[in-house]
């Protein structure tokens, strides 16, 4: 950053220049070198206890823990010297002497840092001949199970609960090799962000009950996405196995969620796997809905919409792209949406990060694109308007109001009872099955990508809406969601200048979004 004093040093023969106060471990990352480590995590205070990140610094009397040693001008650091390798080999051997070596039945296997570094730098055998220590597994409450035999006492979980969640729940109990992670009397991991300890655990000691024995890490396909479950817009990785989402995990973004995501968002993925889907386009013939081709359905819908005022009931789960195309369809009509609400649950140690009250991905995008937020969805429906239901399930809505509409068109993944008057039904992909962008509560536009195959003839919402606009004689030819976004950016000045390339996978704020600062780094060191 500007004005910061820079320090130059050499790491593994590569010249590095970093801001004063940077640790050797972080400096090495800039040179493309990942120094093996366990207790260090950029989102947590430094503990310096695992001693895995020891490196040789020329002229220093002892090996330095690179996570806790700041860079100095002219330093020469050797990560792979004989001395450093030997020290790390020693640490690995010690970490494994009481470890059960039960990788074949361990959920962490395949994404375990103990496995990885042992393959990378460890001994091929152990010299340990004594009986191993044994402690039974323990339910830590919430979504977390603790398997002490696999624990390496890195204390990441302890520090997360204490210094990030600000709710001390875990501790190191006992001393010496009897030590294990314990819970404070009467406490459980029920904090709304507690399941992050499972991600933070570098080994298989803290496991998710939800994911327990569900899949092997190497069977998973991983897709960068956004958590659709509230307006915070935490960056996530959706992990799928055989086209089913089996886990969501946070993806680091210093402007949104740091390294974390809440338990509610994390565990609320099953709706995206649900099987009660509309799989084929349908039109009403002789009073009943029957399956048809996309061409017939689109042209049917276009003829219903043509020349009519359209009242759009949209879901705030839809992407900016789809909401934009919906707004183009209104023809003098209007659009509304409603938001499911829940209790706000902040993560105390990270600025402006919370499970938000509004439990949908794109509330702010919908507002930006001209949709009115309401609690009474159909009150604005005019007599003889066409009612266009987009992604909204209409649960709890009085269906009798629907009769005011001259016609009903459904563009959705599931068919709501209240919409059974529909003359055309266009099945669309759900959040996990298409690509697009959403806008979070601070006006940050973020991309999500397709994690699953959509069922049947289902198409992405932006494609369906683009085709519909085309069939209505509007000039559109969208082959990619990025093209829809480009059109949006060219007509809506809030989105001006943004495109998929510059958004990348960390997003950018809207032109008129209030300025926000990156999530402040957790205070470094205990004192």
């Amino acid at each position, binding site marked *: 950053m500007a004005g910061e004093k820079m320090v130059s040093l050499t790491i593994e023969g590569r010249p590095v220049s970093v801001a004063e106060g940077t640790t050797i471990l972080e400096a090495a990352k800039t040179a493309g070198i990942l120094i093996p480590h366990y207790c260090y995590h950029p989102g947590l205070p430094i503990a310096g206890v695992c001693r895995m990140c020891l490196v040789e610094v020329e002229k220093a*009397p002892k090996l330095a823990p690179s996570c806790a040693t700041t860079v100095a001008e002219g330093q020469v650091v050797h990560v792979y010297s004989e001395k450093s390798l030997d020290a790390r080999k020693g640490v690995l051997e010690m970490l494994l002497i009481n470890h059960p070596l039960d990788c074949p039945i361990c959920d962490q296997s395949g994404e375990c840092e103990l496995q990885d570094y042992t393959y990378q730098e460890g001994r091929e055998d152990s010299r340990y001949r*004594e009986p191993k220590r044994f402690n039974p597994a323990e339910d830590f409450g919430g979504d977390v199970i603790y398997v002490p035999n696999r624990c*390496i006492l890195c204390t990441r979980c302890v520090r997360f609960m204490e210094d990030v969640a600000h709710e001390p729940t875990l501790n*190191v109990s006992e*001393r010496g090799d009897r030590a294990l992670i314990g819970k404070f009397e009467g406490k459980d991991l029920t904090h709304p962000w507690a399941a992050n300890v499972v991600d933070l655990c570098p080994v298989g000691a803290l496991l998710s009950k939800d994911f327990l024995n569900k899949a092997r890490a190497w069977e998973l396909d991983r897709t960068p996405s956004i958590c659709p479950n509230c307006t915070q817009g935490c960056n996530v990785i959706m992990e799928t196995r055989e086209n089913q989402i089996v886990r969501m995990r946070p993806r680091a973004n210093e402007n949104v969620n740091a390294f974390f995501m809440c338990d509610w968002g994390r565990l609320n993925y099953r709706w995206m796997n649900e099987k009660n889907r509309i799989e084929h386009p349908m039109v009403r013939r002789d009073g009943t809905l029957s399956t048809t081709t996309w061409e017939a359905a689109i042209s049917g819908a276009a003829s219903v919409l043509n020349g009519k005022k359209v009242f759009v009931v949209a879901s705030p789960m839809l992407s900016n792209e789809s909401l934009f195309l919906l707004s183009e369809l209104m023809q003098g009509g209007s659009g509304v949406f409603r938001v499911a609400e829940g209790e706000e649950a902040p993560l105390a140690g990270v600025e402006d990060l919370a499970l938000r009250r509004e439990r949908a991905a794109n509330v702010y995008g919908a507002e930006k694109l001209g949709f009115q937020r309401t609690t009474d969805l159909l009150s604005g429906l005019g007599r003889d308007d066409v009612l266009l239901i987009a992604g909204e399930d209409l649960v709890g809505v009085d269906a009798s109001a629907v009769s005011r509409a001259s016609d009903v068109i459904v563009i959705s993944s599931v068919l709501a009872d209240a919409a059974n008057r529909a003359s055309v039904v266009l099945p669309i992909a759900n959040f996990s099955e298409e690509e697009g962008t959403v806008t979070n509560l601070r006006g940050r536009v973020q991309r999500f990508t397709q994690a699953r195959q959509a069922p049947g003839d289902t198409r992405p919402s932006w494609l369906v809406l683009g085709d519909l606009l085309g069939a209505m004689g509007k000039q559109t030819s969208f082959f990619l969601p990025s093209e829809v976004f480009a059109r949006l950016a060219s007509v809506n000045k809030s989105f001006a200048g943004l495109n998929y390339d510059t958004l990348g996978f960390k997003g950018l704020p809207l032109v008129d979004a209030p300025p926000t600062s990156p999530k402040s780094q957790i205070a470094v060191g205990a004192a």
Partner: protein
Amino acid sequence: MGFPHQSHSRETTVLSKYFGDADARTLAGWKKRGGYKALEKALDMQPADIVNVVKESGLRGRGGAGFPTGLKWSFMKPGDGKPHYLCCNADESEPGTFKDRELMRWTPHALVEGCAIAAYAIGAETAYIYIRGEFTEPLYWMEKAVKEAYDARIIGKNAMGSGKRIDVYVHKGAGAYICGEETALMESLEGRRGNPRIKPPFPAVSGVFGMPTTINNVETLIAAAPILLNGADWYKKMSLSNPKSTGTKLYSVCGNIQRPGTYEVVMGFPFKEFLYDLCGGPLHGRKFKAVIPGGASVPIQNMEEAEATLMDYEGFVAQGSMLGSGGVIVIDDAQPMVTVIARIARFFAHESCAQCTQCREGTAWTTKILERIRDGEGTMEDLDTLLDIAEQMTGKTICVLSDSCAVPVVSGIKKFRGEFEALIQGRRFHPVTAAVA
């Protein structure tokens, strides 16, 4: 003095003069013996001048590391706008060491005075005496002395009418060896689990409550008073060998020896004469086999080394060990070395705070191997493994507890390898005759 025995004529009793003298424990008795004169003098001096006198005297830390005390005090920058703290490390838990216990039992006011002098010298208004949890009797006397001193307005918001505030608190530990490590002591003092902190920052920059702190051993602080009264030159002259080691040192002697006790001799005193003359030599019919001269965490000396040692910081190092805390553990030829070393290792394994991998796992692993060898189940490869683990445990952790566990193992195998091999090869240990080293 060789408490509980009669003082030996070759001792130089500066700090231990009143051991066994119950009257010295009271404020009146202590004043009668010249107590608090040094504090009175100190409060008339500039703090910087006190630091200079202590620097000049050559006084070095008596807790084990031997860091020059005056230099340590000079790290505390006056006028930095932060509260300064003094900590007295009275968590004397090094196995074999009990000199501070005797100091606090018999001369509690000396420590109050020493704390007050040091606090004034480093610009601190608060001194904490962190006392070992098991020290119930010294705790009683210390609390009594502090109360007496407060009542007599020797300490408090206007210490001895000087206008200076000096508060002294006695804080009882909960029984962890590691809380004698200075930063773990501070964590414990602040109310947390006693885990050593990463250094830097050092206590002089960020100590108790994140503020500049000086931490000294009981004996060090008590030595400050006679230095101020008698001058730096007087203290400096008490040195029989290396001029870098000055003054007197208390040794607590235990183990297989005629007269175990607490002795005070001038730096550089010959260790051989100390063991055979002052302490009375070996028990009847036995011979000395080894000495651990500075508490369980210093290298074991064989008798050849011990008998050639001049007792000061440099003298012990020259003969393969360290002065450490002055806890002399004498081992005679009736003791199997492997058992002794295994017991020491077990102590460290029990007391490891469990932060650093090498210490948590290494101390326990070392203990298991040693106990297996002791029980006749060892192999020759075990010795190489032990030495290799010891190497991994040395110089790689936050504090030196793991180094301390490795030290007796390495020095033991090096100097008494025959005993290890004999056990491994199935030869039983025969007391007295088995001195194979």
